[in-house]
């Protein structure tokens, strides 16, 4: 047995009460590529951040070349020749490539950019990179930036390279190029850890695969001896029965018809690619997908918060019987029609509630326009606040408490309570149970079911496949901004969803502009 280049034993890390990593074990040898596979929130990035000194583990040991080491800072990790290419590039925009590459190096001798540039060119030739060391980062495309990051760790002489979702931002051609470089590094005896949730990439590039799920270490497999379905099963886990009540959808009408929706972000990357679907009244439509597959953009496009390039969103108004096109309507007009968006998890307070205001005032955020005089009337919102607090069992010292001081679950309840109080016809909920305990989660499920029985078209974006399977009537799966399937929740399996979620859509991301 060769001594592994890096070995992790029983590594654990918690943030507050949430365990991000529980007893993780990993080994990588020289000249070996290890893939770390897991859904979002499974703790992959946290684990890697501990190897490169951004976080410090609560428990466990790290061995480099068989010797136990303590990595307290990024500087320590350089000492052990560990280099990380972060998912969100850590580069200074106004610096040139060369300046970024040498940043933080404590070379003895004079500061000599020219000498460094020559060395950068040498590395570029060796691995076949095409990069202008004098080009400024802000003038670069995403893949050029990534190249700079890779050269940066090579320039430091890293022997262990960690790449955090390197292909998420690349076109298929760029991905191929990257993989060629990685294979070359492997030949040169470097150890590579690559984080990804694209199964076909795992199978094509890696020697070993380690799977994490919800912060726990599931196991390690030899890539050659495994296949997609086995990996998917390890990644999503066995089906767990949750016993969520699900009534048969009744009186379904097409409420919201989305056709060929396309959306591009500020980096010129397509976030939504020809998305088409129909949300029906009296039904819960689930949306599954790896985080960042376009869920946020889709919901925000419907709510009028995001501009989209092309496509149609048609709302069939049950009151007038007319079909309204939501394109070109302001968020306020869309809300008036009865289309409600709630819960944007990354920013629960920022998007929906004002943290420093109390519950009553937060209720008023939605109704203040209805007032006839310049003065606020607190009566009705106060009643609503009291109703929400008692109906949804919000734990709070009183309705005068600033929302910021409540726990996540209670904040969530206030937000859902307020939106439901305005009798929506389309109700969109993104990750409504994230961070909630089991009882609160069930309360939210019941609320969604209640809305469904009232004939509301509910769109539920979730991350827990078990919940999606038991709560929803149909599930639409998004992968890299395109719909990879719309399935009947009763007749599908977790594995099927997992495969759809990691499926490479027809063209991947479009070429960059």
């Amino acid at each position, binding site marked *: 047995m060769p001594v592994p280049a890096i070995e992790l034993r029983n590594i654990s890390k918690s*943030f507050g009460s949430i365990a991000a990593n529980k007893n993780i074990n990993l080994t990588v040898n020289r000249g070996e590529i290890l893939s770390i596979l897991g859904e979002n929130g499974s703790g992959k990035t946290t684990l890697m951040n501990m190897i*490169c000194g*951004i*976080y410090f583990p609560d428990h466990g040991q790290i061995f480099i070349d068989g010797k136990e080491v303590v990595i307290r*800072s*990024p*500087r320590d990790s*350089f000492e052990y020749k560990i280099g*990380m290419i*972060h998912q969100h590039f*850590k*580069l*200074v*925009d*106004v*610096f040139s490539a060369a*300046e*970024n590459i*040498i*940043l*933080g*190096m*404590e*070379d003895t001798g004079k*500061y000599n950019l020219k000498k460094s540039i020559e060395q950068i060119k040498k590395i570029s030739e060796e691995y076949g990179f095409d990069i202008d060391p004098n080009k*400024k980062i*802000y003038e670069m495309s995403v893949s050029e930036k990534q190249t700079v990051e890779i050269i940066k760790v090579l320039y430091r002489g890293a022997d262990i390279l960690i790449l955090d979702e390197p292909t998420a931002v690349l076109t298929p051609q760029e991905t191929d190029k990257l993989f060629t470089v990685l294979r070359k590094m492997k030949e040169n005896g470097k150890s590579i850890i690559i984080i990804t949730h694209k199964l076909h990439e795992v199978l094509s590039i890696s020697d070993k695969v380690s799977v994490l799920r919800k912060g726990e270490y599931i196991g390690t497999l030899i890539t050659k001896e495994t296949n997609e379905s086995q990996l998917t099963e390890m990644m999503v886990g066995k089906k767990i029965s949750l016993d969520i009540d699900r009534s048969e959808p009744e009186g379904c009408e097409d409420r919201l018809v989305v056709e060929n929706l396309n959306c591009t972000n500020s980096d010129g990357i397509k976030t939504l690619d020809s998305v088409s679907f129909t949300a029906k009244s009296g039904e819960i439509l689930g949306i599954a997908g790896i985080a960042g597959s376009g869920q946020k953009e889709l919901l925000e496009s419907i709510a009028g918060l995001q501009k989209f390039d092309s496509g149609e969103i048609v709302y069939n108004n049950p009151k007038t019987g007319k079909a309204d096109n939501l394109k070109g309507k302001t968020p306020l007009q869309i809300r008036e029609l009865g289309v409600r968006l709630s819960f944007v998890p990354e920013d629960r307070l920022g998007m929906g509630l004002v943290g420093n205001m109390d519950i009553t005032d937060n209720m008023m955020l939605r109704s203040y326009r209805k007032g006839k005089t310049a003065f606020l009337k607190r009566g009705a919102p106060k009643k609503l606040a009291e109703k929400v607090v008692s109906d949804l069992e919000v734990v709070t010292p009183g309705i005068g408490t600033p929302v910021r001081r409540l726990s996540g679950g209670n904040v969530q309840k206030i937000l859902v309570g307020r939106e439901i109080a305005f009798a929506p016809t389309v109700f969109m909920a993104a990750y409504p149970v994230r961070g909630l305990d089991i009882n609160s989660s069930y309360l939210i499920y019941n609320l969604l079911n209640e809305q469904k029985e009232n004939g509301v078209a509910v769109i539920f974006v979730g991350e827990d496949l078990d919940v999606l399977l038991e709560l929803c009537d149909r599930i639409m799966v998004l992968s890299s901004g395109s719909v990879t399937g719309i399935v009947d929740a009763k007749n599908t399996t977790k594995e099927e969803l997992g495969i759809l979620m990691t499926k490479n859509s027809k063209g991947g991301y479009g070429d960059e502009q």
Partner: protein
Amino acid sequence: MIVAFITRAIMQAIPLLYGSTGEIITEKSGHLNLGTAGVMYVGGICGVIGAFMYETHTSSFNSVLAVLVPLLASVLGSAIMGLIYAILTVTLRANQNVTGLALTTFGVGFGNFFGGSLIKLSGNTEIPSIALSNTSNAFRTTLPFADKLGVIGKLLFSYSFLAYAAIIIAFIATYYFNHTRSGLHLRAVGESPATADADGINVSAYKYGATIIGSVIAGLGGLYYVMDYANGVWSNDGFGDRGWLAIALVIFAIWRPNIGIIGSFVFGGLFIIHNYIPGLSMGAQEIFKMAPYVVTILVLIIVSTRKKRENLPPASLGLSYFREER
């Protein structure tokens, strides 16, 4: 008269140049120190305290010591101001704007309190100011050959050592930012502290260093104002709004100390030009006094419409950094 105007404008410019060079160094680390006005005030009064102590306690007046004592006192005073700002904003991550404004208020009050005390000690009850003419003379020693060179001598060599030091410091700062490893690291800290941190740069150390050194340099501007420009006469609130003008100059100079040199001359000239245009009414004078600020606004407009990334303020200016923030 033009020669007199230019020399006067340059003397007017030097405190602004110190202030802006110091502020640029601080801002390059991502910290907007609005306390610069207060720091310069403290730099000035500490110099005055030092000089007063020396003048009143020495029997044999030594020019070198007369310069060194106030200089050290001034450096110490402004370094402490910088340290207070750094502890509050770097370690305790307090809001930079609020901290800066508080320091300005504090610095002005500190200066006026001790200024008033010294005036009382000196027993000068008729005019509320304190004159340290001996110290000032020591500070204003010029090169011996300046008088012999006529106009050129007057234009180029008639200033005191602190004036030349201001220009040299500005050039050194420019060189430091662009041609040293440590300067590169400092800029990285101000642009993207997370990147600098991941690259193993000690972010807090750079922030502390830049804030304290920046404050010391800014404080020298206050010292120059009292000892050279005002001929060693301290009067409360005499420094005026030069601290704010220095912060405006940072924007005018688009965060480059070498442009700050020219900018400070322009500002200095605009600041006093109303005295040199004959026949101006009071109203017209006030309009001319606005000129530096109008120019700053124009520069802001031009810079923000051209949107060249290098000309923008450091990207993380005004933001606190905490490594494990998620």
